[in-house]
């Protein structure tokens, strides 16, 4: 019998990792560790996890970790995957583990290249919606209206870039969204991805207490609210069809969703948001759901 996930999540992240209190990164990595054990090679570009892993000669993750230059996670993972294939090694999972900056922005070209070549590895974009490692600067994945240190007065004027949809457009065999608040859902997605040959992309929503300005005890609550308000939609896309994941299923019905303002008001980054801006976000969420319904 397989042990429950929370038991298997133990000892995957070593004590003494350098994450901030309430950081979602160890939560996500624990699930990765629970699924693959130490038969995993994480390729990590410049991002918060570069620090979370701790200083040499220590290593915060019970598996192999390769820190790489910012724009290159998908390219290095490609090289490793091809070498393992050439050498006939089949029992080790290659995973690119990158933030939203290393994925949606500086890493987009290498990501797109690896996806188009259908390289055999899993790419996980853990999305804390800004450049958190350098101190909360906006990324293309920062949502509309959010305060960051480079949108310090007015807030971000553009909506979040939808990287999962960009990956679907690449025609890769597997794309999913996930959230650190739903580890069983994330686990199921990793397991499905591991069985599929070719390029797999998982967009993992990862609320950051430091950058989003909420109490570190509320990470899971904020992550759940993102799903419960319909701001973050959990789904899988494979074999040409979108499948809404369990936690998001109730919220296809708009009347079941919590009010978006409940999600926003917990976060200091939306402190100065106006009613008009909330309306703009509501319109964005509605469009996202329309798209989901159209592709189910």
């Amino acid at each position, binding site marked *: 019998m397989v042990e429950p996930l929370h038991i298997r999540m133990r000892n995957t992240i070593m004590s003494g990792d350098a994450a901030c209190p309430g950081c979602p990164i160890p939560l996500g990595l624990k699930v990765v560790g629970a699924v693959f054990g*130490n*038969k*995993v*090679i994480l*390729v990590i570009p410049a991002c918060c996890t*570069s*620090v979370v*892993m*701790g*200083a*040499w*000669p*220590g*290593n915060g*993750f*019970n*598996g*192999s*970790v*390769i*820190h*790489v*230059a910012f*724009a*290159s996670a*998908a*390219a*290095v*993972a*490609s*090289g*490793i*995957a*091809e*070498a*393992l*294939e*050439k*050498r006939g*090694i089949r*029992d*080790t*999972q290659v995973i690119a583990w990158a933030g939203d900056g290393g994925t949606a922005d500086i890493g987009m*070209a*290498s990501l*797109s*290249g690896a996806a*188009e*070549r259908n*390289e055999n590895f899993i790419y996980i974009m853990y999305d804390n919606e800004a450049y958190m490692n350098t101190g909360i600067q906006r990324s293309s994945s920062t949502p509309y209206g959010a305060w960051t240190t480079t949108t310090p007065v007015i807030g971000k004027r553009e909506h979040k870039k939808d990287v999962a949809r960009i990956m679907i457009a690449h025609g890769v065999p597997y794309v999913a969204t996930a959230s650190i608040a739903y580890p069983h859902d994330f686990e199921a997605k990793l397991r499905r991805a591991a069985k599929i040959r070719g390029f797999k992309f998982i967009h993992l929503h990862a609320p950051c207490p430091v950058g989003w300005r909420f109490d570190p005890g509320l990470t899971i609550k904020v992550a759940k609210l993102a799903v419960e308000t319909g701001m973050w939609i959990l789904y899988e896309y494979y074999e040409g069809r979108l499948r809404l994941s369990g936690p998001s299923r109730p919220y296809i019905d708009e009347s079941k969703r919590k009010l978006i303002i409940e999600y926003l008001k917990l976060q200091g980054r939306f402190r100065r948001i106006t009613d008009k801006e909330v309306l703009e976000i509501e319109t964005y969420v509605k469009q996202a759901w329309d798209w989901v319904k159209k592709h189910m």
Partner: protein
Amino acid sequence: MAIQVLTGNYSVALAAKLARVDVVAAYPITPQTSIVEKLSEYIEKGELDAKMIRVESEHSALAATFGAALAGARAFTATSSHGLLYMHEWVHWVSRARVPVVMAIVTRTIGTPWNIWPDHGDFMDQRDAGWIMSFGMDNQEILDLTLQAFKISEDPRVYLPVMVGLEGFILGHTSMPVDVPDQKLVDEWLGPRRQGYVIDGSEPLALGNLAWPEDTEEFFMDIQESMEEAKKVIKEVDKEYGRIFGREYGGLIEYYRCSDAKYIMVSMGAWSGDLKEAINLLRDNGYPVGLARIRYFRPFPDKEIYEVIRGAKGVIVFDRAISFGSMGPLFMDLVANTLKHTRRISVIQNIVAGIGGVNITYTDFTGLIKDFISIIESGGEPPVFKWYHRR
């Protein structure tokens, strides 16, 4: 062994094939393109059992090459000019991770303006990056250097990446007869892939975690020490290769008519062939001149250079690159490194020429050398720096 007529680029591709590379990741750029085309052909025809990763940029080319090499594959890439500059971040990353990799640099002038002709500016731009840097003179040497690069890179005393330079078009696209080593002999001599560590899932391993300043500095000091070791390894490999395949080049430097020369020319790359012509011509006219051709720019052959120039009356260093606001990089390195062995340097001149691909022939060299010698012989002092330009 068999003679084939090959371009410089095909010599590189054939050497990579003879080394039985496992993974090639590359992106096309003029004048490197025919290397990646040829390797693709070898792989698709089944003549080379390797994976070709057709990446979307040079930055990813070296990143993927690094990933493959790290995971235990013998990995190869090639590029030129802007491609090399675009991957520069990775040039440093690979050497600092101590991962054996071989890369061919088919040199081309850096823009703007757009220019496809060769000088050494792109190659020299990598000089502080921790790679072993070799440069050939003809297509035979290009094949031999590329093959030897794998052996040197994978030597436990070195474990550093190696780049092999050749001028685009002048060598890259010009066909010459090349003696191609026998595959069986290459297999025996080169052996299986060797590297300091492998990340392939067989044991958990972390690479590149944040390191404190003292630890980081020690990693880099070790690269400097390995560069010293590499000098020995390069010479050993050159000798061993000569014994097995019949061609020995002299190690870090090729000496041409130096033993009784009073004036020493120093150069690197294909134009050294023209320089040899000039030296022969001048010798016929009684000028005691010789050539020390740099085959390895990193590690810099300080002792060898010192020994060859120490008795000379005059030295000219020909540079096909310019460090704007200073001088030619070969010259700067030569002067600085010679100071390790003596405070007294012969009358010395740096001639920068052939920039942007301007063609320099043996008549140019002959004129320049004659001018230099006549100034010294008449008791004058030639200018230390000269940018020689002609139309």
